């Protein structure tokens, strides 16, 4: 998932960025509120991690602004302020979760997954599709009980498409969800990953929509039910 981290502290920001990257996320990191707000409006972030005590613009102000501008994905507040009023205020302003420093990176990852799941309207932790089971927490995929080895980019791409079944995602969108600003991207990177996923999971899973991008169609049973 592509994430935006807004944190002014150098050492903590870099560590959080690296830690989440180790968990397979693409993380952009900015160090003040104004830049953060601009980044949210320009990018396509699956979630935002927001510190409250920020230079130039306070975290709560950033939160208010991005919610007002229609950013609907999860926002997690990471802060050193730990009294109840701050939490209540943060959640009521539009945050999805509230994490107090110092925090555990694994827990942060789990809370991110939970917030994403809730925002996608899913109660299940596993993504299930036609005998394919994807576990975002364990970062594992199995088909009919057989483990399928995926690279971290392939896994991120598969999860991204599974979470948006029935929606067509452009090559640009897919690329943005996979790579942070610092990554060097080959021009055909997405095609290579799609090719590899098809090789490992079968040709029919990911459908190419000519001139638009790629999609995973909902299973036949679900399509009938919704029709």
């Amino acid at each position, binding site marked *: 998932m592509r994430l935006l981290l807004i944190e002014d502290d150098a*050492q*903590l920001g870099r*560590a959080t960025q*690296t*830690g989440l990257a180790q968990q397979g996320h693409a993380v952009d990191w900015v160090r003040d509120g104004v830049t953060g707000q601009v980044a949210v409006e320009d990018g396509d972030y699956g979630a935002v991690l927001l510190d409250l005590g920020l230079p130039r613009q306070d975290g709560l102000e950033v939160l208010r602004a991005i919610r007002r501008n229609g950013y609907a994905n999860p926002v997690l507040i990471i802060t*050193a302020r730990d009294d109840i009023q701050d939490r209540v205020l943060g959640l009521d302003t539009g945050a999805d979760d509230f994490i107090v420093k110092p925090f555990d990176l694994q827990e942060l990852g789990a809370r991110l997954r939970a917030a994403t799941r809730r925002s996608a309207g899913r109660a299940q932790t596993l993504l299930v599709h036609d005998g394919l089971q994807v576990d975002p927490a364990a970062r594992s995929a199995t088909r009919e009980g057989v483990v399928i080895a995926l690279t971290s980019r392939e896994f991120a791409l598969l999860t991204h498409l599974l979470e948006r079944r029935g929606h067509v995602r452009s090559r640009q969108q897919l690329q943005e969800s996979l790579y942070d600003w610092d990554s060097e991207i080959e021009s055909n990177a997405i095609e290579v990953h799609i090719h590899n996923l098809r090789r490992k999971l079968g040709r029919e899973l990911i459908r190419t929509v000519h001139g638009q991008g790629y999609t995973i169609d909902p299973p036949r049973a679900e399509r009938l039910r919704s029709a």
Partner: protein
Amino acid sequence: MTAAAPARGWSLRRRLLGLLVLSSTILLSGSAMLFYLDARDASQKLFDAALRESAALILQLAQHEIEEHGPSLGVSLMHAETRAGPFAFRYQIWTEDMRSAYRSANLPTTPLMPLATEGFDWATVNGQRWRAYSTWNARHSLQIQIVQSLSDRRSLANDTLLRLVVATACLLVLALGSMAWILTLTIRPLRRTAGHVADRSPDDLQPVDERDAPREVRPLLTALNQLLGRVRDTLAAERRFTADASHELRTPLAAIRANAQVLLSARDVAERERTARDLLDSVDRGTRLIEQLLAMARADAQAGVSAQEIVPLDDIARNQQLEHAVAAARKGIALHLDAEPACVRGVASLLTALARNLVDNAIRYTPQGGVVRIGTGAHDGVAQLSVCDTGPGIPPGERERIFERFYRIPGNDEPGSGLGLSIVRRIAELHAADVAIGTGEDGRGTRITVRFKAA
């Protein structure tokens, strides 16, 4: 202010009551005593007058009897003795030639007093004291010696005394009761106020209500409320400081933890090295913050600079130049010293902390290749220490706020604790020095000057 307190110490109410009871007892007893003495004196005079009259009457009677029936008087005078009570009396009647003309029963056969005397006297008959009176008739042929029992005479006065004692005691009891009641009523507002204070929860530091209290107690309550106010302010500052401190400590701790976690699952050597360096930096920052907090606490604990010694500011400045030489060299900053002798009275360790924070800040915020100048000097009774840099400077609007604890200028990227200048100001306050922020040389950077009274 606990419930047990009134049991110990002295009680205003009890002392007042005791003094009132004592004084009213003395007054009432005194007046009763005066009344008694006066009454006794009056009754003595009354008795004496009655005695004299009786003597004259009996003597007249006796003379008459003798003229009619001869010198033997016999029973005819008996009726005069029949009176009982305090007015009972007995007598002897003697002729001029010492013969007994008449004698009441139980009286000796000899004269009670020498016949030569006349008037009032005291006599002892059968071991009892009697009031005696003797007088001659007009012709000097008969003398009457009449006596009245002292105990009889006293019995009247004693009755009066008894009544007086009873009445006084009753009055005293009444007075005591009403005084106790009045005192209780008077002291009730005090007790109520004490109760209000005692019933408070320990963190209720609101002022005590003074409206209800008597004028005499107001100064006490006012002083108490002022004290409460000071305690409230101190506590609020302490709470704010503790909250701020814990808030500030969380970030380096979070960085330490996150970096350690990232280090454990580092994907390559470069990531491991970078994370380890960040981890060390975070630890350094945490350490520095804790040192600053301790310096702050130490400066706060110093209620006033008491252990005063003469401290040469120029020595402190020289030490600071040495202490920061490496840090300055690492950033390519020229650290100059301009040390003229300047001595102040104060605590050397605190003054060193003050100088250290100023120099540390200057080096921290001055970019590569800049200049930091430490200067000391004294003139016109003012000793001063100044630190001047070529950093970004402090906008005039921020010059007051930067002394607040944990305050950092917005947009400032340098990891600082936000405590340095608070420490400087606190130490300056303790030394009755003032801190001025100005612009550095050539209108660039910052100059911070601390002015002391020269020693």
